[in-house]
Every structure is written in C-alpha cells, then in structure tokens.
C-alpha cells in the first residue's frame, strides 16, 4: 500500500468516529461555568451583541496597518463605565434597535471598506461599548457575584473585539481575502437590516 493510501486509512477511523451520531445534550452555554466565565461568555449568548462585535472587530482588523490602540482604548474605557453604570439601576435595558443600528453601521463600513475618519471610528466604538455595556446588566445575584460577572463580561468583550481585529487583519494581504471581509460586512448589514425590520414590526 502506498504512503498516501495508508495515511488516508489511518485517519479514516478518526473521521468516522467524529461523524458518529450522538444524542444531543442541550444546555445553556453559561450555566455551570461560574460567575466570571459566565460573564465572559455573556456577549456570545446575545445575537445582537455578537453581530455588533463581529462588525467592530472586522472593521478594526480591515484597516492596514493594524492600529488597535486608539479604538480599543475608547472601547475598553467606555464599556467599563457602562458596565459599572448597570449596577446603579439607572438604565435597565437598551432598545435592541440601537444595538442593531450600530451593527448595521459597522457592517456598511466593512462592506464598503471605507477608510475611517478618526471621529467616526472612535464614535462608533464609544457608542457600541456604551450600548453593549448598558445592555449587559446582571439580573440576579448581589455583591461579589455581580462584580465577578461584570468583570467577566468586560474581559469577554475586549477579548472578542481584539481577537476578531487581529485575525481579520491576517486576511488583508490578498484581494480575495479583503473581498471575503467585505462579503462578511454585507452579511452583517443584511442581517441587521432584517432584524431592524422585525423590531419595527413589533414596536
């Protein structure tokens, strides 16, 4: 048997094992991971947040050369303030259309690959951080539990945006890679537009 064929046969059992059907064990993402990691995962459990974070991360990574400092500084600072504000109870929720509207804006910027004016970029990051932060209030628990959860959410937000920006920036060398990012932007725009319509119908 030649080398290639033997390699295929060696990996075939692994592939088949991975394809074995198994019963689904449905559970929520956050339960059982603790307060801090529950907070870290929180942005990923809200589709509107995911859409906006995707838009922000790709938008940031799309810019060549990659400059994370200024926009991330704004994002980190404002999100910390907003998460802190949730503990005061002044703002209970953020209207979903606001978050989706920001995702729409980020998606359009990514799809059009517009070179950002500094104030647009920082304004977008500030508003996004404010909206997501205020929308991430901890509904149950007191004291240390809330602090740990909010710290987790803050860490999660920063990791998600920074990672997305970093990995998106790896897809800017070739034209087809840049096109791929723009297509992703158009998907974010399209999904946001639809969700806005759903929100309008229900309002």
């Amino acid at each position: 048997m030649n080398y290639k064929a033997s390699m295929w046969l060696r990996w075939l059992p692994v592939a088949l094992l991975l394809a074995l059907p198994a019963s689904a064990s449905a559970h929520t993402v956050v339960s059982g991971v603790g307060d801090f990691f529950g907070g870290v995962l929180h942005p990923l459990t809200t589709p509107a947040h995911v859409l906006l974070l995707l838009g922000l991360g790709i938008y940031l990574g799309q810019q060549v050369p990659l400059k994370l400092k200024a926009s991330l500084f704004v994002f980190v600072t404002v999100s910390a303030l907003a998460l802190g504000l949730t503990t005061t109870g002044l703002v209970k929720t953020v209207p979903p259309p606001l978050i989706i509207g920001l995702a729409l804006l980020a998606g359009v910027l990514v799809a059009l690959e517009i070179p950002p004016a500094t104030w647009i970029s920082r304004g977008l990051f500030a508003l996004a951080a404010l909206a997501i932060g205020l929308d991430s209030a901890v509904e149950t628990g007191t004291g240390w539990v809330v602090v740990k959860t909010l710290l987790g959410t803050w860490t999660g937000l920063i990791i998600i945006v920074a990672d997305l920006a970093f990995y998106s920036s790896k897809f800017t060398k070739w034209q087809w890679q840049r096109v791929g990012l723009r297509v992703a932007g158009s998907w974010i725009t399209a999904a946001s537009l639809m969700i806005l319509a759903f929100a309008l119908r229900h309002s």
Partner: protein
Amino acid sequence: MNKPSTVNRPATLSLLLLGLWFLPLTASAHQEKGTVWGFTSGFLHPLTGLDHITAMVAVGLWGAFLGVPAMWVLPVVFPVVMAFGGALGVLGAPIPGVETGIALSSLILGICVAFAVRPPLWVAAVIVGTFAIFHGHAHGAEMPHAANAMTYAIGFVIATGLLHLCGIAFGLLVRWPWGKKLVRVGGVAIALVGFGFLFHFISA
C-alpha cells in the same frame, strides 16, 4: 517463520467503524424553539426551495463568469438588497408577483450564464438587485411566527451567502475551456428550472 498476515489492519478497522457509523440510534426528538430554532429555520429556508437555490447559485456563477470585480460585487450587493426586500416582507408591504419574480430570476440569471452575457457591472448589479428584492420578500414574509427573528435573519443571510459561494466555486472552473462549457451547461439547467417554475405559476 511467521507467515506474513494478509489482513490489512487499517482497512479492517475502517470497515468496522463504517459499520458502527451506520448503526441505527434511538432518535432523541426534542422541541425546536428559541434561538437555535430561529437560526435553523432561517438557515434552512433558502435551502428548501429549488427556485431559491438555483437563483442564488446562478448569482455566484454569473459573478465568476463576469470576473473581478463582478465576482465579489454581486455577492455583496445581493444580501443587502435581499435584506431590504426581506424588511418589506416583514413589515407586510405588498410586492406583486413575488413567486413569479423568483422563478424569473432563475430563468434570466440562468440564461445570462448559459449565453455568457457580459453587461456592464452596474447593469448586472441592477438585475441581481431587482431579483434579490423578490427573494428577500419571500424570506421575510414566510418567517415562522415561533422563530427567533434575530437568529432567523442571521441564518438565512448566511445560507444565502454560502449558496453564492457554491456558485462562485463552481464558476471558477471558467478558467479552463472545458470548465467554461460546464458552467454554461449549469446555466442552461438553472434556466430550465426557472422556466419550469414560471410555467407552473402561469398555468396554475
């Protein structure tokens, strides 16, 4: 001296596992609802209608045929305009002849691929955009009431985009003479499907 084994161990193991794979397991049915149901429902919606599938693939095929920049402009334009149509559908704004428009989209786009029609980019974008409104309207209007709207939208946009990518991947065969013929035959098949749907709607 030991006789060399004639049994091919990896092959035997693979066959055994293959058998294991086909073992029937008890179905664990559970109610589909909420976020996951919305995504699944949205993702499957464009994949459950042949008229949708053929039109989406045709967009990718035509884009690949037209080359850069049409290859990426069309798949960027289509989802955005489709979402606009979807928004109209969600809000209940009537658009006449949606199903006919969808059937026409397969027919026209299939013909464009089959005859290797190469209009200016803006004309291609307008044609694709116009048809996108019909497709989007259908997606928006037919959203199941139980589905999570947000994940439904994300699901159907991703499925649509992946169908475009399938079309583009197939369309990239045009760089070879035999591939060009194959893609054009694909265009003929899409046009025939579109004609079939159109005929069905007109005769119904």
